[in-house]
């Protein structure tokens, strides 16, 4: 089975996001052929090259989403068609209303415009030049000044219109790539988009023109990331004036991203969010719940096996001693950044010290030493690190056992790779309790690693923490140092409970967050999609001539006669619950599934019998 892996700023690039996950997926599913279609985000990413690719990646095609567009203008007829479709798209994104379901009319207009543009780009090319032309700006202006347009859009100035058309050109660049030939996406059995947004566009086109099923995996929801990069908020609030866009630009681009996401979710055969948080956002953006299937990201459990098993074994023995770890020690592992709220951690630890003076805190930074020395001092994160160190020095003076020994600070800042903590498992093993104090978190990777290590954890209730930890650790509200301190104290004072929670956490992690689980889930999903949504290609005989009557006429009945029923020609095999099983009861005899003679030769016949 040929799987087209669609990525944006991701997989084959050495510094791409979600690269590790894609790599494991591709290596784990070596019975399939993979073709990687990658969009690069910047010249730097392009220049840094690719990661090493396994043999099942047959082919890699790349295209930049940056830089100047290729200049090629279309003729007059193309210009007219462009005006028609782009006008529709512009009207849809200028109209008010979020991407949530219920705004069907605008969603239809958006879809029509988008697919019209895709068709135009497929037939004639020249879409980037058209999107940069005066026509596009004029159409957008007209759409913004329509009576029903959103308030933000109506305030658009010329500079805003230009920014929006440039951004749209970049976002729609996947439409005019040369990926859709018979050797490309037209020949793929499945498109797997590893993120929403631009990466899913080729899949959308393939779905539309070739019927290739589309699978969308999102670990971070693209729409949400778009909102966050459009308005830099958060406790970090790093001053990035260039990133602050004007209200009309944000209105139009948010509407575009929202409607694009809704369209992608509507056309996708399956959507696999990485956690419940992403799932909620996807549902909010219009994804149908029955097509959502949460697949947790997988992590390498083998690295932590030694520490995890050791901790269990010893604690099972006498219930108190945790292997290697010092049971007076709290460990925090991560990058020292404002969203991690190390300040709250320090305040909480001050409270812990007040009640347990022998407690210690080890703050272990995972950022590489060379990576942080490179932009020394200039990076905004460095200020925060310095601030945290200063606060720690202020709150906790150095202490010594008696008058003759050299003192030491109860809070130590260490960096992963230093002699004290050479590896990540040892970092987690260094303490009795692992603490997570973030105020913003997506999927808490560090927490899951701590779970693999069998550590008892105290974490803040942010992002996907609650669903990751389940009942196997303590959860406190974010920005609440006292609650954090109470929870830490409770665990520090109760070794048996710590061991119990650690063992439960490890068991939970091994069940939910391993690579094998992730790969197995996708293996099943691939097979399911292939069996339920096969690409309908014309049956070709020996000489390359089309074979008439190779498929029974019933195969062309709109809607699926094998599973469920649905009205649109995009053919979702997942119908609403209830209608999925038992079409045989309601099917008239003349429309009953016929024996598929040309297709099923022997083994398939028996399979149908089994199924029936």
């Amino acid at each position, binding site marked *: 089975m040929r799987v087209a892996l669609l990525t944006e700023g991701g997989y084959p690039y050495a510094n791409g996001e979600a690269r590790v996950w894609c790599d494991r997926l591709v290596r784990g599913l070596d019975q399939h052929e993979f073709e990687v279609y990658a969009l690069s985000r910047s010249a730097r990413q*392009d220049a840094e090259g690719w990661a090493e690719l396994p043999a099942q990646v047959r082919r890699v095609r790349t*295209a930049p989403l*940056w830089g100047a567009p290729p200049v090629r203008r279309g003729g007059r007829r193309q210009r007219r068609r462009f005006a028609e479709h782009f006008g529709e798209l512009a009207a849809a994104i200028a109209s008010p209303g979020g991407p949530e379901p219920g705004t069907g009319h605008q969603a239809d207009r958006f879809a029509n415009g988008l697919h019209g543009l895709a068709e135009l780009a497929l037939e004639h090319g020249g879409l980037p030049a058209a999107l940069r032309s005066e026509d596009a700006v004029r159409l957008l202006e007209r759409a913004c000044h329509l009576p029903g347009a959103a308030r933000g859009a109506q305030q658009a100035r010329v500079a805003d219109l230009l920014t929006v058309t440039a951004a749209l050109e970049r976002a729609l660049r996947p439409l005019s790539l040369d990926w859709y030939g018979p050797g490309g996406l037209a020949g793929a059995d499945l498109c797997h988009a590893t993120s929403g947004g631009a990466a899913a566009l080729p899949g959308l086109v393939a779905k539309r023109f070739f019927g290739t099923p589309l699978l969308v995996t999102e670990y971070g929801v693209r729409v949400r990331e778009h909102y966050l990069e459009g308005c830099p908020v958060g406790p970090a609030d790093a001053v990035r004036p260039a990133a602050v866009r004007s209200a009309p630009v944000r209105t139009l681009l948010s509407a575009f991203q929202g409607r694009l996401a809704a369209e992608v979710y509507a056309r996708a055969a399956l959507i696999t969010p990485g956690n419940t948080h992403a799932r909620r956002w996807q549902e*909010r953006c219009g994804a149908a719940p029955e097509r959502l299937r949460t697949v947790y990201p997988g992590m390498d459990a083998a690295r932590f096996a030694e520490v995890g098993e050791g901790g269990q074994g010893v604690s099972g023995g006498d219930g108190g001693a945790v292997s290697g770890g010092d049971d007076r020690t709290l460990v925090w592992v991560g990058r020292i950044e404002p969203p991690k709220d190390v300040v709250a951690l320090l305040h909480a630890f001050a409270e812990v010290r007040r009640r347990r003076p022998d407690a210690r805190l080890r703050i272990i930074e995972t950022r590489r030493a060379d990576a942080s020395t490179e932009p020394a001092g200039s990076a905004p994160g460095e200020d925060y690190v310095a601030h945290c160190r200063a606060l720690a020095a202020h709150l906790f003076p150095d202490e010594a056992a008696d008058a003759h020994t050299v003192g030491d600070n109860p809070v130590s800042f260490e960096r992963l790779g230093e002699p004290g903590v050479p590896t990540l498992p040892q970092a987690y093993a260094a303490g009795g309790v692992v603490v997570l104090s973030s105020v913003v978190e997506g999927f808490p990777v560090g927490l899951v690693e701590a779970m693999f290590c069998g550590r008892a954890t105290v974490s803040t209730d*942010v992002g996907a923490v609650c669903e990751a930890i389940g*009942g196997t650790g303590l959860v406190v509200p974010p920005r609440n140092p*006292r609650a954090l301190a109470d929870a830490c104290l*409770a665990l520090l004072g109760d070794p048996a409970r710590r061991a119990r929670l650690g063992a439960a956490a490890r068991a939970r992690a091994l069940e939910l967050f391993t690579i094998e689980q992730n790969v197995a889930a996708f293996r099943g999903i691939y097979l399911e999609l292939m069996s339920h949504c096969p690409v309908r290609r014309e049956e070709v005989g020996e000489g390359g001539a089309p074979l008439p009557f190779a498929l029974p006429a019933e195969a062309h009945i709109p809607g699926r006669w094998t599973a469920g029923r649905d009205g649109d020609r995009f053919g979702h095999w997942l119908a609403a619950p209830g209608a999925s099983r038992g079409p045989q009861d309601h099917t008239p005899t003349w429309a009953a599934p016929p024996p598929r003679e040309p297709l099923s030769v022997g083994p398939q016949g028996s399979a149908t019998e089994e199924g029936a």
Partner: protein
Amino acid sequence: MTTPHDPTPDAPTTPTSPGGWNRPSRALIASERAAPGAAARTPYAAAGESGRGGEPLWPDAAAGRTGAGRPDTARDPGAHAPSGDPAGPEAGAAPGDDSGARPTGAPGRRGPADPVRELMHRHHDLCARAVDPLEIAAGLEAHGVTDRTAARFRHRDVFALAEELYARVPRAEDRAEEPADAPAPRPERGSWALWPLPGALCAVTAWAVLRPDIAPPAVRAALGVAGAVLVGVALWLCLSRGPLRIAGRGRAGRLADLAGPLCLGWLLGYAACGDWLLTGLVTGERGAYDTARAAETAVVLALATAPAAGCARWFAVRARRRLTGSRGLEEFAAGVRPLFVLTALGFLAALAPLVLAARLVLRLSPSGTGSVTAAEAAAAALAALLFAARLLAVHGFRAAAISGLAAAGAAEAAVEVTALAARLPGGAPLGAPVARLIAAHGAAVVPAAACAAAALGLLGYARAVLSRASAHNATPGAPDGHTPRRGPHRGDSTHPARCEAPQ
């Protein structure tokens, strides 16, 4: 103000009937009357919870929103349990764990009547500049607001809370301050120091070359060559950065890349020796090559770099500024058209002093006769043509620029060819108009007329197209876009080794 999630549809009023207050409520009211704030502490002490240090993030929603009129529910912890939260507080805590510091909305200090108001106040900027509720939701989540927090505000999730905030906070009218805090991106500073360099170098070189008394001819020739190289370098410096830089060069087709330099080369070549050739063809005798006139043309062209760059930059900056201020394309076009006219007039006006300066520098050249003035006019017209073409190319209309240059070159070539054809047997009548023209106005009138007409045409076209907004669409990512480094194994290529990999 009630929300759809309010469990009681009644309006929140104080019960007036006897027995409307139950016992704990009465105790609460009594204790609050006695010592406001004392009631806030007791339940905590009783429950052994200490998770609330008066943190404003966890305002006591229930006490405010609905509990104002129903104090009995304010005492009931069940009323505060997040109803629609899939991961309730219990989900996060270990079984049998009661010390997880869960600040469920235990009855505490009585909050304000409207707890969302505090949130509104805290995130006012975020809410005021948000363009839709999802933006507020994303921002709230980035600030650590979770579904459980939202449940405290009697909302099912963050989205519902964000919707209320979006509906209640008035949108900011930030249009007024925007032009101030988003100034037009200025071209890089400092490059203007380079602009007069080609002119100065060229003038010095021409002056040195044309003075027979300062050095022997061989030295002067060497000087001339060295000067020409220096002028070329200076020109390249001026044109490859700053306002005269053409972005995205080398992306177009190969033919288009060649056409521009070819036309330019022809025009410059004609300016150098076209008149001499034409005179020779018409009169039939080889006249002396007028070095001084060619040098003057070169000096005028090199000197014109500075005003060209200055005008181009002025136009670009003004147009960019207008871009941020205009409300519509028509308004923008109406504002930019006079700007362009001013730019063109400014450049043309700057040409006259340049010609004078060139004449002063090359004082030794024979001046004062009419034909020299025509040659100077030709040089000025060529400068204007090149300026117009460059301006168009800078703003993305390269094809138009090249066709303008090509038209002027073709006109000049046509005259030359006609003169040549007149030399052929039987072709004499063809050459008559050319001969008459040259006799009347001198040979320099041909390039002057051709270049002036082409320059006028290009300027007229530019006035129309440069008033479009899309012509000023500066792409910030362009500088890194035109030199992609491509490794041998990169690009739209299949892996040869991978393709042959056995199945």
